């Protein structure tokens, strides 16, 4: 069926020419169907990853095309998961590409009823100022006559969804700042 004539574009003709008299298979295929390729094959980058949901740690393969994630599926190489994913793992692409993701900084002024826009750079700067200020105001050198060298004015919550490297930097910075109420999901 390779040497197609113009007439072959009309499936009825193909029906008669091929053995597919009832028009069930070969004859009924359309052009796009013939050219079908999975987007895993057309991806320009394939990246190994790990499911972001639970602690099973299933392997994921991330397919990227033109700078966007086009597919995430199980990594068959993983001895943990053997290529399989549960519904959450299978929905990871939606997690990453979801239009519900908020991608801009939002700011709520004290007592305000609305969110406002805020530049990322300004936001980080303002947060740095808040940390410095709160730390200074709440600093304690001693408690009950014992040296404690800390602030009880700043707390942090979260870590179990984050990378080890991130937790490391967080704990390192907080500890240097003298903040001790650093907690994560291990507690709840």
């Amino acid at each position: 069926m390779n040497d197609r004539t113009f007439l072959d574009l009309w499936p009825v003709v193909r029906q008669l020419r091929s053995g597919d008299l009832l028009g069930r298979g070969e004859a009924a295929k359309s052009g796009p169907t013939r050219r079908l390729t999975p987007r895993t094959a057309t991806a320009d980058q394939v990246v190994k990853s790990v499911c972001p949901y639970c602690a099973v740690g299933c392997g994921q393969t991330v397919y990227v095309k033109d700078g966007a994630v086009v597919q995430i599926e199980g990594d068959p190489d993983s001895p943990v998961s053997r290529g399989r994913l549960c519904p959450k793992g299978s929905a990871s692409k939606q997690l990453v590409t979801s239009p519900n993701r908020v991608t801009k900084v939002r700011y709520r002024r004290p007592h305000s009823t609305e969110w406002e826009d805020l530049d990322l750079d300004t936001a980080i700067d303002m947060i740095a100022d808040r940390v410095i200020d709160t730390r200074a105001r709440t600093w304690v050198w001693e408690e009950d006559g014992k040296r404690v060298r800390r602030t009880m004015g700043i707390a942090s919550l979260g870590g179990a969804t984050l990378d080890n490297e991130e937790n490391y930097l967080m704990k390192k910075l907080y500890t240097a700042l003298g903040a001790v109420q650093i907690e994560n999901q291990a507690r709840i």
Partner: protein
Amino acid sequence: MSNALYGPVPNVAEQAGYQDPPPRMGFFTDTSVCIGCKACEVACKEWNLVPDDGGPLTGMSYDNTGALGANTWRHVAFIEQQVPARQAVDLGMPGIGAPGAQTAAEPGQDADIRWLMASDVCKHCTHAACLDVCPTGALFRTEFGTVVVQEDICNGCGYCVVACPYGVIDQRKDDGRVFKCTLCYDRIGDGLEPACAKACPTDSIQYGELDVLRARADARLAELRADGEAGARLYGNDPDDGVGGTGAFFLLLDEPEVYGLPPDPVVTTRNLPQIWQRTAMAAGALVVLGVASFLGRRS
């Protein structure tokens, strides 16, 4: 090439005009190991970019997608049953309606429960009514023996919808066209596993050459029977059944209808010769009536 309408077909792809087709591929869904996680539903939607069509809670156990349809190409059924205590031998007393509807009393010590879960999908019938009635050729049989709708061809005539004896294929309301499982035609063409089978954590969905799967299913059935699972049965694996056997078949632990499957579906085109014959007779009758009406008086 038989172009048959009924009965076993040794090579469906060949019958559909393929020369030297690859082996027929399909699914063996072993519901006895399904944990109802719905990874198959999600993986299918992610791969095939199927829209979500969520509704409110159905109250049907953990099933909130209800049935196969244009936007649900894999559907996991959840059946809660009371069974006699700790005897994996009897079928039990499957119920209908909402779970818990049957008894308001506490279960007796002699009653146990079981929770059947099963992932349903298009059967990729040997005799696919949907395909045979499709007037546009949008539905076609692939070289792998599977049945696929071509989105660029379907004109939304809706004929396939009423032809399918399993109620699988359906129209997407806002789109007009029909959709169903493609058995991931694009993926399997590239040597990949279908998305649902790949995701399935417990291998409840097994993809492969149909012959191999059928043998594996026989072995699994024997194993379960030996374990006292008397209700275990295969569904769709028999080429002598009403649709010539299905490309996606199942191991069930209860009667098919309990899972929302027809117990003994027969492809409608099995009767097509008689239907055409009757239609021809009626057309003839119409001619006769026409002629007869001109016999007799002029006014």
